[in-house]
């Protein structure tokens, strides 16, 4: 698939892709190549992508309540229509400063292991479909032990989008056992 498309051309392509998706297997077989549907958000100057299937909704930042003694990557908890969700300060997870909230800040609500978790991001830029051929593994030198949440890198024109592995990025795998009062 060509990478550099005018916005209008890209939109019509997306529409086409949607149509293809709706028409089922027979037509899909003719589609050029498999694609990934991603939500793109930014933290500082970098762009990150997560599979759209994992994102439940994107909301303006509500009041976030601090939880004493919570892990450092947790900003607090929020109320989403009567449910209390943890809000992950993903910037600190990625080695960045804590976020300054702006009018463009958003919480991306994702589902992980049947639970809902909010991710605080600077800006949600777009929802895109990216062909598999544009997705490559990150250079070995970049993926350190600490950055094990980077699964791939996608090229969209001149832009590089870092695809992240949510469970690792959100530290959901090591749900801790209760901390003893006296250790």
């Amino acid at each position, binding site marked *: 698939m060509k990478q550099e498309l005018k916005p209008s051309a890209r939109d019509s392509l997306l529409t086409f892709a949607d149509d293809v998706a709706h028409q089922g297997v027979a037509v899909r077989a003719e589609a050029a190549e498999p694609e990934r549907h991603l939500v793109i958000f930014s933290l500082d100057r970098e762009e990150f992508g997560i599979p759209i299937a994992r994102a439940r909704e994107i909301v303006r930042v509500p*009041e976030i*309540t601090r*939880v*004493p003694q919570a892990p450092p990557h947790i900003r607090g908890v929020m*109320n989403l229509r*009567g449910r209390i969700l943890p809000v*992950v300060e993903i910037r600190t997870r990625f080695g960045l400063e804590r976020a300054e909230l702006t009018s463009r800040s958003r919480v991306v609500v994702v589902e992980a292991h049947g639970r809902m978790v909010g991710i605080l991001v600077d800006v949600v830029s777009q929802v895109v479909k990216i062909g598999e051929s544009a997705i490559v593994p990150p250079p070995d030198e970049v993926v350190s032990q600490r950055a094990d949440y980077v699964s791939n890198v996608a090229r969209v024109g001149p832009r590089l989008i870092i695809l992240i592995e949510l469970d690792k990025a959100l530290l959901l795998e090591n749900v*801790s056992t209760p*901390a003893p009062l*006296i250790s």
Partner: protein
Amino acid sequence: MNDDAGNPFAELLEEYVAECAPLAQAVGDTLVTLERRWEEGDPADQLFGTLKGSLHTLKGNSAMLGLTAIQALAHCMEDVCAFLGERPDLRPAASGLLLRGAGVLVEMVGRAARGPLSADRSEHFISEAREFIQAESVGTETSAPYPERRRFERRTGSEVGELGSDGVVSTIRVDARRLDGLLETFGETMIAGLGLREAVRDLAIRHRGAGFTDLEHALTSLEKTLKRLEGALMATRLVSIATVFGRFNLLVREVANAHEKRVGLVTSGGETQLDKTVIDRLGEPLVHLVTNAIIHGLESPAERERSGKPSEATVTLSAVQRSDRVILTVTDDGRGLDPERILHKARQLGAVAADATPSREEVFAMAFLPGLSTTERVSALAGRGVGLDVVANSIRTLGGSIEVASEPGKGTKFTMSLPLTLAVLRSLLVAVDGERYALPLGDVAESLRVTNEAIHEIDGHGMMLWRGQVIPVSDAAEVLGGSARASRNYCVVVRSGARRRGMLVDGLLGHQDVVVKALDPSLGRPPTISGATILGDGRVACILDTARFAELRATEASTATLS
């Protein structure tokens, strides 16, 4: 039967378990009593008849659902009973066998709704029972080794009548998940009501109180109705604690036999009711306490006689309601806790300074420290390495507290205080460091205004005089990981058992009923927070674990982080 979509057979199985699990339990309980009566030489024919009736019904119900393994087991137990009917002399000898069967029965019935059953244990029992009958039949006129005179009969209507209804109270069985759903919806309604109240207050302030009387009245009446609805809803969720106590007869006997102890179980207050959520999670900590008491707390019959005690030990389970809490106790008349040993171990663990001289009460409280009560010995039944810290943790997650008192040589008593319900919490809202926190009202002894002069400090630890008593004081903001400040205007005295601790806060925001929600596990279970709630303005507030706060030790209270 039930109009839920889904596998109709699965629902039948659930109904089966709901009906038959108590019946299987009753078989065990009856046998425990029979065993004793038979040993005393009382044939107890009437009770024996009840036992046979229960077995018969179990057999019938199991057959209807094709649970052949359970059917065969109940049938075999019936056969043993029939055999004992003719040979009353063998009854005392056979009670142990029947009790083993009852144990298998309880377990299999309980698991029936959770997938296919393995017949290993039931078959083992059946062959054991056949051997028993065969061995005892030798030399008697009964030629058939396995008397099969009774055929399987379908259970009749009259039996159902005997079992279930007394014809007066009409009850329906409701899926517990529906009740949970109802409670959740009620919680949302309550939060919406709180929001409405705040909106009306704002409106009245903005319009200087003009013309909102009707609205206020309507809202007040809505709030009263909600309160009644809450009461009614909670009442539907209450389950008597006898359902938990019920399983202990068999357990006590089994554990006592395995450890060569003689133990009688006494229960009281079984009619006390608690919310289903609390009941469901209470069994495990109680089982740990009771097994621990038998294995580690009670002496052998010989040892007891030597010290002038009755050779049969007594374990008592009791429950009693005190306003909106239920007090549960597990008492044994065994050797009691050894304060010296606890203190020694606590010193080894570094939980207490080598030169400290804690009071006896403080020493007993240390029994709940992680790693302290786990004995080196591992026994098949209790010694799964489960220490008292685990028990204390499960009680705390239920919003309860636990204490232990003990008299060397006389026995040990664990006292637990539990909330009647977990869903709605009467709370005091306080402001700390720009956040609001809800404190369970039941743990608040008093809230008062204080001046800086009232707080005294020794080596960084605060204290104050309260009702003629010197109590420790900590700055809530500091404990909650914020910054300490020179002056805070209000103090909330929180309690846990006999302990009191003052908590300095920025402001008191009034009483409020809040709907308790659990915190997501990714928040790492902060030690002083027990849950969260949504306030009227839609913001989340954390619920403080006041009991935990009251129990803070000096070193922890003065540091910002607890773990």
